[in-house]
């Protein structure tokens, strides 16, 4: 399954390694500095305090929910963007990717004016008895908003790389579009979908600005781990550092687990395993 060539030739000039090393140090050094700051004797009590565990649990639950929402909304979006050309497609893509470049606070404000009490949809939702503001649902909405582009970009890339030969063949053999999607397209891009889902999960886990602006901050309801860290920092720097390390560990675990397998642009035989 390993597709790397066996010749040993990488085509990378030696000086690239030097710059790459500097890049790696630039990313790793702040993490090392943080680890050095951790109050180790107090580490376990700090991360197992009631407020920390509640925040961690809430973060994991909401991130899972928003990843699911990203898959439900993002897979069709990526398919439409990658497979069927239509007028305004370029514009749609630019807008779908907008949360990537938007400061999360801006996203939070936009969500507030959409789902908030006085918002575009908020009034109708309130009449229907649904109140989103200050609820866990608001957290999931904020996370989905910022994480969706990650899934769409990953999956669209995978769809384009995979091409549509196999789908065309399946169709000529009489498979209906839904069957082709289920039996050919999705299995073909599964690694890309998995990578996108993992990135969405990681982005949801780190979501801060939109949540703070849109959902508020209450223990067990809307105060996710990043918000808890931000609050702890006010009074207890040790707790903030310990929780930061916990968040880093969870993120590394999630991303590390998923990148162990070959991903986007994988050979078709891999997809049909």
């Amino acid at each position, binding site marked *: 399954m390993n597709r790397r060539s066996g010749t040993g030739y990488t085509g990378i000039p030696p000086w690239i390694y030097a710059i790459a090393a500097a890049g790696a140090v630039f990313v790793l050094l702040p993490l090392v500095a943080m680890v050095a700051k951790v109050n180790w004797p107090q580490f376990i009590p700090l991360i197992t305090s009631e407020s920390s565990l509640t925040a961690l649990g809430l973060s994991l639950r909401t991130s899972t929910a928003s990843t699911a929402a990203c898959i439900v909304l993002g897979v069709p979006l990526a398919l439409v963007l990658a497979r069927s050309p239509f007028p305004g*497609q*370029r514009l749609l*893509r630019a807008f779908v990717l907008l949360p990537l470049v938007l400061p999360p606070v801006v996203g939070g404000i936009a969500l*507030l004016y959409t789902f*908030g009490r*006085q918002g575009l949809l908020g009034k109708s939702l309130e009449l229907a008895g649904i109140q989103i*503001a200050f609820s866990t649902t608001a957290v999931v909405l904020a996370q989905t908003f910022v994480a969706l582009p990650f899934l769409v970009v990953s999956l669209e890339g995978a769809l384009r790389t995979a091409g549509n030969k196999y789908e065309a063949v399946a169709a000529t053999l009489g498979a209906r579009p839904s069957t082709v999607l289920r039996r050919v397209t999705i299995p073909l891009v599964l690694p890309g979908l998995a990578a996108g889902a993992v990135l969405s999960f990681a982005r949801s886990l780190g979501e801060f600005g939109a949540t703070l602006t849109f959902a*508020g901050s209450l223990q067990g309801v809307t*105060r996710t781990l990043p918000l808890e860290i*931000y609050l702890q920092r006010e009074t207890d720097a040790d707790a903030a550092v310990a929780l930061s390390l916990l968040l880093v560990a969870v993120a590394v675990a999630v991303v590390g687990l998923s990148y162990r397998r070959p991903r986007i642009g994988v050979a078709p035989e891999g997809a049909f395993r």
Partner: protein
Amino acid sequence: MSMPRRLGTALLVAGALTAALAGCAAGTPGAAGTASSTGAGASGTPKLSGAITVFAAASLKSTFTQLAGDFEAKNPGTKITLNFAGSSDLVTQITQGAPADVFASADTKNMTKLTDAKLIDGAPANFATNVLEIAVPPSNPASIGSFADLAKPGVKLVVCAPQVPCGAATETVEKATGTTLAPVSEESSVTDVLGKVTSGEADAGLVYVTDVKTAGDKVRGIPFAESDQAVNTYPIATVGTSQNKELAAAFIATVTGSEGKKVLSDAGFGTP
């Protein structure tokens, strides 16, 4: 779609954002323009010159911006750079070596952190006080009229978290009055609380008197007698590492003097 096209879209979005940010930055240095017009004033006082950086609590933004502008106008050749943030953030920055000459805190607790660390020159001077006030949307949807009303069931109340000064004050009032509040959110800063009220998400919020004034007609303020249970005192001091202590002391004198008192009381601050 071709790659250059996609890059083009990305650059367009990036360009628009940069332009928007640049627009924000260009708005601030308005004080420089007014400096020359009233420059002839101070002839009897010793000539002040140079530049200082003032780290001030976020709640002092409008008053200190005005005071610094006036000060620069009266003393041509001086430059006061202001840095506003939460008091505890500023303490962290100064402890980590940020180049501050003057520190104005929103509470004595944060100032004490610096005096304990021997980072302050001399004794801090208290120059203002602030008390809590209830802020409600102009329509007052939950018909709030008193502090006790905040505990009514169904009221969407937003307060500061106990970890930040305004939240500590909220907790003190709660204890003193024997009221138990059930907020829907505990925010990390008073501006976040105010934001939830001005946007109409919350029925009521507990903020400072001065925040209600700053918000203008976007919120209605409801003062309550119990607020005197938790009075926040604002101290100001010269930072020990300051390179221009003369100018720092002159600015502090302006803040604590009659001119500062007027500007501060106009903004709703009390006198210590």
